[in-house]
């Protein structure tokens, strides 16, 4: 099911782009990542809108008053929160549902890159069974996995002065950090758990994705970097990028929610 609906079509689309542009797999990964992000942009926009609304809500005095007032009565607190959601026109699912829908697409994209790279005989055999019949499989192999200074099927290292430097892993970690920081909504509420989680993610995600970039094929790193840059661009298009967050000691002014009239 997962194979038929996601991995196989994604792999074939990736290979189609690869053929279309004359056999550069690095460019194919970049174009396919952009294509998927464009298709899922409405979901992303909806998620950003929902997150902003939630942030505004958590920064509001009314919300904080409700938290204080009903801190010892969980049932009543839940009722009042729901009432407040309704009053300001906020749907609690609006910030997480689009993310949930995007996750399988991101995983599918990731798997299709790995599938298409087919770095061993067993993987090539699987790829052979994945490609649609309109491709002549013999024409696709070997996939040109050279891109810039990288072999996309291998973890990337640049050898300088006798040291193997994982340049791409560093770029992945930096772009992930920048994306996390500049797209993180501002919060004045010291007990805002979302903001605290965001701060933690800004630390852990660059490390995690940097580790993946260090360990796995560099084609994956190209996908991570492209995804990070597109993510920043998507936020920028919606006017939600906060470049000042990158400067030390800078705290952006929060926005406050208002009840519907």
């Amino acid at each position, binding site marked *: 099911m997962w194979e038929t609906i996601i991995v196989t079509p994604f792999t074939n689309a990736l290979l189609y782009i690869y053929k279309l542009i004359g056999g550069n797999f690095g460019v194919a990964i970049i174009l396919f990542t952009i294509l998927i992000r464009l298709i899922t942009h409405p979901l992303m926009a909806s998620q950003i809108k929902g997150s902003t609304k939630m942030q505004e809500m958590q920064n509001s005095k009314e919300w904080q008053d409700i938290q204080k007032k009903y801190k010892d009565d969980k049932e009543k607190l839940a009722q009042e929160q729901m009432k407040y959601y309704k009053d300001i026109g906020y749907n609690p699912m609006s910030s997480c549902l689009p993310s949930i829908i995007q996750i399988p697409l991101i995983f599918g994209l990731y798997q299709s890159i790995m*599938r298409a790279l087919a770095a061993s005989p067993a993987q090539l055999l699987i790829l052979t069974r994945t490609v649609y019949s309109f491709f002549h499989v013999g024409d696709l192999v070997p996939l040109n996995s050279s891109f810039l200074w990288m072999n996309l099927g291998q973890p990337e290292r640049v050898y300088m002065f006798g040291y193997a430097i994982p340049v791409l892993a560093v770029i992945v970690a930096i772009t992930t950090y920048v994306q996390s920081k500049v797209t993180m909504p501002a919060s004045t509420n010291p007990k805002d758990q979302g903001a605290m989680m965001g701060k933690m993610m800004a630390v852990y995600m660059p490390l995690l994705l940097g580790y993946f970039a260090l360990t796995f094929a560099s084609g994956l790193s190209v996908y991570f970097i492209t995804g990070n840059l597109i993510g920043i661009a998507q936020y920028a298009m919606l006017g939600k990028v906060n470049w000042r967050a990158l400067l030390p000691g800078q705290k952006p002014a929060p926005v406050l929610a208002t009840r519907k009239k």
Partner: protein
Amino acid sequence: MKKKYLVLLGLLLSLALALSGCAAGLTASSWPALATDAKNAYLAGGPYVYAVNLQTGAQAWRFPASASAANPFYATPVLTPDGTHLIVGGFDKKLYSLDVQTGLSNWQFTDAHDRYYGGVLVVNDMIYAPNADYNLYALSLKGQLQWTFPADQSIWGAPVSDGANVYFGTLGRKVYAVDAKTGKKVWMQVLDGAILGSPIVLKGKNDLFVGTYGGTLYALSTTDGKTLWSKPVSSWIWAGPVLDGTNLYVGDANGKFVAYSASAGAKVWKADLSLNGAIIGSPCLCGGNIVVGTEAGTVYFIDPTGKILQTIPLSTNMKVYATPAAAGILTLVAPTGGASTDPVLLALDAAGATKWSFIPPK
């Protein structure tokens, strides 16, 4: 707050696991390969190389003592001319020389940058080791590097030699002839598809036969690499053809198995095994017959006239990707894909009956 941190940590770990799972496409995976001498069968499969007694089917030794599942063996092991050592490369980028009596390694060659998919060629006291790092390494029998030939792409099939030159194909659709002593290129020929398997040379006739992933069987001149004849087959060819001196036998992904005349490429006979899956491994010339395994897990014994003598279905889920091997009156088949309790090596007699089976001890 501690709970929140734990939840976040859990989420990150889940993501890590999910991505690792997705990256299964990059983790090592392989199917087994076989060699034999008068005493043992040598099975390179999964994380070990096993020596299995041909009389009893019992394990004589296995290498290494402690293995990593991430670094299996795929390349066919090859015996040195004196039969004392077994040369085999692994996914760990190392080429090993193993004592056939003990299974202990007497040297390792660690200069390669990628995995060994192709078996080595051992001839004239030299070892020619193809690697996925695009290089063909020439070593002495003591494992000392003599020369390195850089090819255009990964080399997945074993090289062959006529004594003067070494011939091999690459994933880059090229066939190379390299001087066996100096490592200098003699000629290079571009074909219609990647070459995943091993070519075969007909000594004395100066003919080299190559099957391609483009679905063509080629006969090339060993003198200059020019095409003598070529025959399209019904699908891609994974492993190379075999030759009995007169005819060439080759199977393809559609399960078509064809005998061609080596001299002119005329079709001699065709056996349609397509109901039982793709033919991935090379056929084996075993005991006067041709033995072919299919992806659907069926082993066929075919006589030289094309008559199917035996059809032996293996257990459910078993696939035969490895080239079978002859061991006296026995034919050895190394299936893959079965349950952990299924055998990884079967010894069949001429009637196709199982004489013994080998299940690796835990």
